[in-house]
């Protein structure tokens, strides 16, 4: 899992500070909400990017998540963790965004990504000190396959996988976003990994072999 796990003391201190900021916001101090936005924006962006797969949508999800959080802040008062709550709002909105994007792309004649620059291409973001042509070609191919495999997951599967594997969310949190039971959420994580494995294993293995051959030559 990639998500950095802060220490228990640190998490408690942040949660405590979040509660204070929420109370101050509800009392009419808008600047207190700014603290929450600045503190949680990066995490929400990471989740949103992994769910939507593109930066523009991710940024829209982040803004919308905080707007909705502000509008519903009164409902949060009794809850324990602002970070988890805003995550849930963002994940829900990201699912809506993905659905909408799918409909939009279905209507377009040309491929959806043809107009995108290299900014959103993960290949262009790879920092490889000395990529050999073989490794570069393999990276390009593998990344394409990974993106396709992720895009082929259902919205629920992608959400469950991103939240569990990359964001380290508890199964109960995932179940709340998917509006399902914990058992069903667990099953969705399993189905997602199984599908990804099915789609990617041949390329991962081939890649390992290709790298081995590259070092020998």
């Amino acid at each position, binding site marked *: 899992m990639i998500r950095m796990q802060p220490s228990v003391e640190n998490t408690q201190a942040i949660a405590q500070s979040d509660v204070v900021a929420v109370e101050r916001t509800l009392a009419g101090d808008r600047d207190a909400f700014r603290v929450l936005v600045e503190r949680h*924006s990066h995490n929400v962006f990471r989740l949103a990017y992994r769910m939507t797969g593109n930066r523009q949508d991710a940024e829209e999800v982040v803004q919308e998540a905080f707007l909705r959080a502000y509008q519903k802040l*009164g409902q949060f*008062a009794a809850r324990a963790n602002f970070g988890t709550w805003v995550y849930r709002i963002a994940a829900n909105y990201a699912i809506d965004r993905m659905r909408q994007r799918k409909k939009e792309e279905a209507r377009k004649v040309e491929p959806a990504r043809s107009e995108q620059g290299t900014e959103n291409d993960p290949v262009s973001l790879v920092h490889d000190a000395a990529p050999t042509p073989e490794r570069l070609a393999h990276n390009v191919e593998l990344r394409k396959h990974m993106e396709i495999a992720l895009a082929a997951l259902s919205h629920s599967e992608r959400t469950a996988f991103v939240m569990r594997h990359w964001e380290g969310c508890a199964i109960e949190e995932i179940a709340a976003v998917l509006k399902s039971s914990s058992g069903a959420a667990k099953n969705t994580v*399993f189905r997602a*990994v199984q599908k990804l*494995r099915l789609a990617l294993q041949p390329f991962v293995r081939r890649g390992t072999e290709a790298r081995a051959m590259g070092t020998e030559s």
Partner: protein
Amino acid sequence: MKHMTEEDLIAYREGVANERAGIAGHLAVCEECRAELERIEAVLAALDTLPVPDPGDDYGRRVWQQIAPRLPEKPKRWWRPWFEAKRLGALGAVAAMLVMAFLAGRITKRDRTSTTDVVGNREQIRERVLVVAVGEHLGRSEMMLVELSNAAPRDPAQKQVNISAEQRRAEDLLDENRLYRQTAMQEGDTALANMLDELERVLLDVAHSPEEVTPAQLEKIRQKIEAQGILFKVRVVGRELQERQKATTPAPAQHNSSRESERNKA
């Protein structure tokens, strides 16, 4: 030796296995399962190399700058929206309709002289009440969506369009919509429930939009409404409900199914 299933190994790798200790114990002695787990891990490790762009150190500040002008003065306490007079009135009306539908069912239930007729009447009255209520709700929703779609700045030089009136109406309609959707679900009218579910999403979008939007943002809202074809669906179902309202006898089952398929097509 009985090997672990793929599901067990994935659950173990993702930290959601119930029998974690048992799986770990098995892996310690089973080379085959260890190899299988390594293959799963290789795929997941490859996926971990997919980068997430760094939005920059000042990203939180930029997000704040973008959303701050769109925030209302003060967030509402959770109980406040439910006690607004207008909303209380709307909810009261909806609740009264539903109570009437329920009572209609109860009253006709007592008279058991002819079971088939009574069941027919009860269902008919219940459906009629629901049909009238939902029909009116769809009419109001349609009007709001049409007005929103036609909204434009009063002065061409104006950079913002105020949609707060539509927003408040969307908020009110949302509460009613939820109740009707749940009732439709309970009544087994899945086509109507699905349409109300779609409408709910659009109403949510409108209700959560900023009070003042730029023409570009308004265009985006319009495109969303258009993309989902919700206005068309609302009209089709609304007209169909009007027809149902006019009919004095319940439609035969085959007609119901053809109506449902028409709605599904829409």
